[in-house]
């Protein structure tokens, strides 16, 4: 199948939608963990096509959004240090921290550069031996292996001016934390596609087994998502809870062993702060002792200042799926993509941005 067109075939989609309508009798609350899924669902208007029995919730799976203000402040403080070049993926640039953003720091003279891969950051380090080049490591299991690879490469080449500020997070413990909180009752989970490509679908077995919640790993095209919902509904109606894969072209049960090995060669699990969720044990990745000299937090002295949360912003509750962007008093009025208050409005995979950009409120 051709990726873009065949996975949007409207006849096939109609068949799946009809099937979902036919099969779904029980009330179901399905959460898509991943921000990429939220965007796809909103962009294609999938919620409007589902029967009223099915409620869709958006989860915390946007790495930019779940980065805590205290971590953002660290990045901004680091960027302002003399002699430092801070390299980052573009999405982080506009996210407001407690007092400022990387974009504002850059306008005030900090050397902040957008890169598209860690290899670009390494190249900047090679080209600027007298400067200290920090890569802002934000992302899930999809990104962390490439950052680990850059650390290994830097070590191999003896690049002494390359550092990583690791704010990486791993997903399964965060889902567990949300389920354990009991705030949101879920009947099914749409498991992240890209993350599962690395960690494997087996990483979600505990959810199906211990919580009795059906799990299906989904791709990002409309047909992938409809197929996933169809499979979740089938399990629910039969009273089953298993982990299934609706994204076989990218995901296996065991995942990408090479990527995981690389990731865990360089990083080890540590507690991490998730915006809205709080500190979750074993959900972060820090550099192992052997690679500590690449750790920006250890290598630099800087003061990120006290953490302040933006007034009125409910990104935390949105990320926990306790509230939706529409419940926020700032949504669309004060907080817009051009003038974002919280990270969920900044990131291209944030729930607030997806609701803002794609939801045809007056068409319903």
């Amino acid at each position: 199948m051709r990726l873009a067109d065949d996975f949007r075939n409207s006849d096939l989609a109609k068949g799946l939608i009809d099937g979902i309508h036919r099969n779904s009798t029980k009330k179901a609350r399905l959460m898509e963990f991943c921000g990429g899924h939220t965007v796809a669902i909103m962009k294609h208007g999938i919620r409007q096509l589902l029967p009223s029995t099915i409620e869709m919730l958006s989860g915390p799976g946007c790495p930019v959004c779940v980065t805590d203000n205290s971590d953002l402040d660290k990045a901004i403080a680091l960027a302002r240090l003399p002699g430092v070049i801070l390299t980052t993926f573009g999405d982080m640039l506009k996210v407001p921290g407690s007092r400022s953003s990387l974009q504002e720091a850059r306008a005030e003279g900090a050397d902040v550069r957008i890169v598209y891969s860690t290899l670009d950051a390494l190249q900047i380090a090679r080209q600027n031996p007298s400067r200290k080049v920090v890569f802002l490591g934000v992302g899930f299991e999809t990104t962390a292996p490439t950052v680990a690879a850059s650390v290994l490469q830097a070590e191999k080449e003896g690049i002494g001016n390359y550092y990583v500020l690791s704010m990486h997070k791993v997903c399964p413990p965060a889902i567990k934390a949300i389920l354990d909180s009991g705030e949101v009752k879920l009947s099914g989970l749409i498991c992240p596609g890209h993350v599962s490509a690395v960690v494997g679908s087996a990483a979600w077995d505990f959810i199906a087994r211990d919580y009795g919640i059906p799990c299906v790993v989904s791709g990002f095209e409309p047909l992938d998502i409809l197929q996933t919902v169809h499979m979740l509904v089938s399990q629910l109606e039969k009273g089953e809870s298993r982990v299934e894969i609706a994204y076989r072209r990218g995901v296996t049960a065991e995942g990408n062993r090479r990527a995981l090995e690389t990731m865990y060669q360089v990083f080890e699990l540590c507690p991490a702060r998730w915006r809205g969720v709080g500190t979750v044990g074993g959900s972060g990745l820090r550099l192992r002792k052997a690679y500590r000299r690449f750790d920006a937090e250890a290598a630099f002295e800087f003061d990120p200042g006290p953490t302040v949360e933006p007034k009125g912003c409910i990104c935390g509750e949105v990320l926990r799926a306790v509230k939706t962007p529409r419940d926020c008093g700032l949504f669309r009025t004060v907080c817009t993509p051009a003038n974002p208050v919280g990270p969920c409005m900044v990131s291209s995979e944030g729930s607030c941005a997806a609701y803002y950009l794609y939801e045809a409120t007056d068409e319903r």
Partner: protein
Amino acid sequence: MSDRILLAHGSGGRLAHELIEKVLLKPLSNPLLDRLDDSAVVPFSGRLAFTTDSYVVNPIFFPGGDIGKLAVCGTVNDLSMMGATPLYLSLAFIIEEGLPLDELERVLVSVQAAAREAQVQIVTGDTKVVNKGSADRLFVNTAGVGVVPEGIDISGSSAKPGDKVILSGTIGDHGIAVLSQREGIGFSTRLESDCAPLNGLVAEMLAASKRIHAMRDPTRGGLATTLNEIASQSKVGIRIEEEKVPVREEVRGACEMLGIDPLYVANEGKLVALVHSEDANAILETMRHHRYGKNAAIIGEVRPDHPGRVVMKTTLGASRIVDMLVGDPLPRIC
């Protein structure tokens, strides 16, 4: 002559004259330009359309065109979108010291080719050279004038409920072709920019029907932004159908990879026209016979409801808002 542009080439002295005579005038020569007076003096009668645009594209050479072709086509198209027949252009260069002379010559060759295709004359110009670092290789400004024939009144404020929305071809070709060449992104594609002068196409459309109410070329900000501008200026709603909007497979693939939406990607050889519904099919037929309108399609219609807003029926049959572009589309991180 040096094989690179020097500061002295912009000084107004001997080197500047040498540059003008040997490099600039040669390809562009016409009786009006060759006079080298302080202004071009041209005969004119009728309603004048007048526009200007600056071009800072990076890189200056890209698949399917370069900054010179773009500078001519962009201004020709801005005139054409008002229904004007483009006649005369000015051409001004701001050159960063050190630009290889042969690059400037290549740009001039495509300026000349584009001007010839669009049947416009470059009648006045200017060249400045700035210190290294004060500009990025080469910036170009063109201004243009044209004449608007009697009976034609096209404006972004004139779209009316019931009008059909016609798009002249595939979207996103230019933006993706340029992005593919960017340092740091670089991916290989056979895709070429759609950069082209549209005055010929517009002339044929107007010959088919004068009832073209609004017309724009969706450049920066893409089709989504252009339609939002028209919806807001005309105080009407616009409803388009995702399935009807032509997008090349390569463009869709690249957009998926970069996490951007083709609706927001720039075009340089496409137009969108909002026309009286009775004439829509005749205009569409005419467009499809023109080399720059082969993939033209009716993609939607103007509605009295939701004024100022663009709504799209998705491939799956749902509907969603299509908003203006906010900021620069940045590639995604996961």
